[in-house]
């Protein structure tokens, strides 16, 4: 019994230590001498590998989710005779919650895990150490571009997700199930507020992007430099990233609905 409690305490302390180390790591990455001109092409390259390559999965997921929401939504609204509210239902669900959250989960799974694996592999093959030996700081050359790329790509991906989802719901709702197009759009426009819903959705995107990318690069950098270690680190990125997205989503939503 005592042993259990001890283990719990130990795990808690270890967790705090990890959070501390990762916080310092993030600070060191961001607060390097910002040689912006040198950094920019590196960031562009990373936006390609983190953002552009995630485009397909995000867009496709958005499409399917929009279509399913329209189907399910129609099914239920039909009973109350208010199918013309479909547009509003889908748009609000997607823009406020599903876009940022599902986008975040997809991002953690696809981009986060690939970042962790890539950086972990560089650690394991001593590329980061040899870069240090050549007096080039890997934190700004390798880690920082990936971090900024993640922060930039995430809101973009979420915006794309939302648009595609709404479009998907339009396809199913209006074209297939016969909801009136005019009502679909006008009800949606009447109920979705740019400042409250869309801007907040994008803010969520930024926050999730920061957190997921932070976890991904941290796990990669501090991974045990073996094949098994990298595997574990990648799994941790996906698991922690997803959990943090869901938890933060709750916190942010309560702030936002409380009207900040």
């Amino acid at each position, binding site marked *: 019994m005592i042993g259990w409690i001890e283990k719990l305490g130990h795990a808690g302390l270890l967790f705090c230590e990890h959070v501390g180390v990762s916080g310092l790591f993030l600070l060191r990455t961001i607060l390097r001498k910002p040689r912006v001109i040198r950094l920019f092409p590196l960031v562009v390259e990373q936006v390609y590998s983190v953002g552009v390559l995630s485009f397909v999965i995000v867009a496709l997921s958005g499409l399917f989710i929009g279509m399913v929401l329209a189907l399910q939504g129609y099914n239920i609204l039909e009973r109350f005779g208010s199918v013309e509210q479909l547009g509003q239902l889908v748009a609000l669900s997607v823009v406020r919650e599903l876009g940022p959250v599902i986008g975040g989960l997809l991002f953690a799974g696809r981009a986060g895990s690939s970042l962790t694996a890539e950086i972990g592999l560089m650690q394991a093959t001593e590329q980061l150490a040899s870069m240090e*030996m050549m007096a080039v700081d890997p934190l700004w050359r390798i880690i920082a571009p990936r971090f900024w790329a993640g922060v930039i790509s995430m809101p973009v991906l979420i915006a794309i997700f939302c648009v595609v989802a709404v479009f998907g719901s339009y396809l199913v709702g209006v074209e297939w199930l016969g909801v009136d197009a005019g009502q679909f759009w006008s009800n949606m426009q009447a109920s979705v507020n740019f400042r409250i819903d869309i801007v907040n959705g994008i803010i969520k995107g930024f926050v999730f992007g920061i957190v997921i990318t932070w976890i991904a690069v941290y796990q990669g950098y501090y991974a045990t430099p073996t094949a098994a270690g990298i595997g574990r680190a990648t799994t941790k990125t996906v698991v922690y990233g997803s959990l943090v997205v869901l938890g933060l989503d709750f916190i942010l939503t309560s702030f936002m609905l409380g009207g900040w």
Partner: protein
Amino acid sequence: MTDNFVEIIGLHFARNDHWVLNDVNLRIPRGKIVAIMGPSGSGKTTLLRLISAQLRPEIGKVLVNGVDVNSLARSDLYKMRSLMGMLFQSSGLFTGLSVFENVAFPLREHTKLSEDIIRNVVLMQLEAVGLRGARDLMPSELSGGMAHRVALARALVLNPQLMMYDEPFTGQDPITMGVLVKLIKHLNEVLELTSIIVSHDVAETMSIADYIYVIADSRIIGEGTPEQIANDKSPLVNQFIHGLADGPVPFHYPANKYREDLKL
């Protein structure tokens, strides 16, 4: 200008609550090839990392060119590191860049030389290691030995004064080993380098080293010229140098009595 390029004085280093290095004293004379040998896990790679200040010792000093590396601020440390080149065990080539780009990397990062000059310098370096024709290959297309040679070219491109080789011969085929041995010796003379080789390949290392330190159990258990080491009578050094299966490092992992285990 001190006579010894690197001096390690009274060094103690611990990892995970146990001492990896205990009261180690080393001198690396300028212009010489010094080998650090010992069984696996004896802390040889750790020593190299301590010299380049990638790790900090608990107690003791590491002096490079007369300067305590651990007292340097980050930017001075980076300047100090440009005096050193290191060849890593896994070669450490950047997988996303071609051979040419890998060797050019330090030049692009630290100098503002024009593309033409960079091109020529890189090609000269590659020529010195015999891989000028491989310049457009990607690291994934190179054999282990070739990757090591490219890493060597890259480490030398900024004209360091100290070269550190971390297990350069481990796992190489005989031809590659021969090539690397020849290159290390040749470059040390021609470029007036000081070289430190960490290895447990006894024959190869003894053929080119000027001085050898043997490390085991976190201490230096023997030092001297290759002849002195080969004739060293202490049992651990003897077992290591001659590759004896049993001796101070036992063959059997500690276990219960044999008869008891077999339940006879």
